[in-house]
């Protein structure tokens, strides 16, 4: 239950910081800002979905985590780590070829990592883990 509350708390904090970031950046929003905001919103929705699933399991009297969910999380972590290595290599490759700031590139890298984690989790959660 503690971890479920943590999931909701972190999602809320992320949402709050994004709203603050949007308000502090003034009236002008570029297309890349909108894309970043969209991706962060998607990730928050994903985190909320996981939190809701855990809450539902707890209400039903089922264990919040079992061997399948742990295995899915483990496989997701390893696969997304592997993908994120390529994301960072790609960012290093395009670093000198584009006009983005280093902070922006790091932001994109972190967003890419989070997005790859979410996509991997959804993939394993719906496809299953057959040969383990």
């Amino acid at each position, binding site marked *: 239950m503690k971890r479920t509350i943590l999931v909701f708390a972190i999602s809320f904090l992320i949402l709050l910081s994004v709203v603050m970031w949007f308000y502090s950046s003034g009236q002008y929003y570029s297309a890349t800002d909108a894309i970043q905001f969209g991706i962060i919103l998607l990730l928050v929705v994903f985190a909320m979905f996981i939190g809701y699933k855990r809450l539902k399991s707890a209400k039903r009297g089922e*264990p919040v985590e079992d061997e399948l969910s742990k295995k899915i999380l483990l496989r997701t972590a390893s696969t997304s780590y592997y993908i994120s290595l390529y994301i960072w290599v790609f960012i290093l490759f395009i670093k000198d070829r584009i006009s983005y700031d280093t902070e922006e590139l790091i932001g994109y890298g972190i967003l890419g990592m989070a997005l790859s984690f979410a996509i991997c989790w959804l993939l394993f959660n719906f496809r299953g883990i057959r040969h383990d």
Partner: protein
Amino acid sequence: MTNKIKEYRARFNLTQDDLAKMVNVRRETIVFLEKNKYNPSLKLAYDLAKVFKISIEDLFFFED
């Protein structure tokens, strides 16, 4: 690896929820097992076989 969980569950008149609670896993795990999308640990396989009062070999089997 395939299994006869769905068949035995129907024979014992159990819902997926009931079976999940009996072996202490989430209902989704039973759904995945029945669809052959997940191979359980030895402990879970043993617990499931124990619920249906059969051996693991009778519940899970390999197909070529």
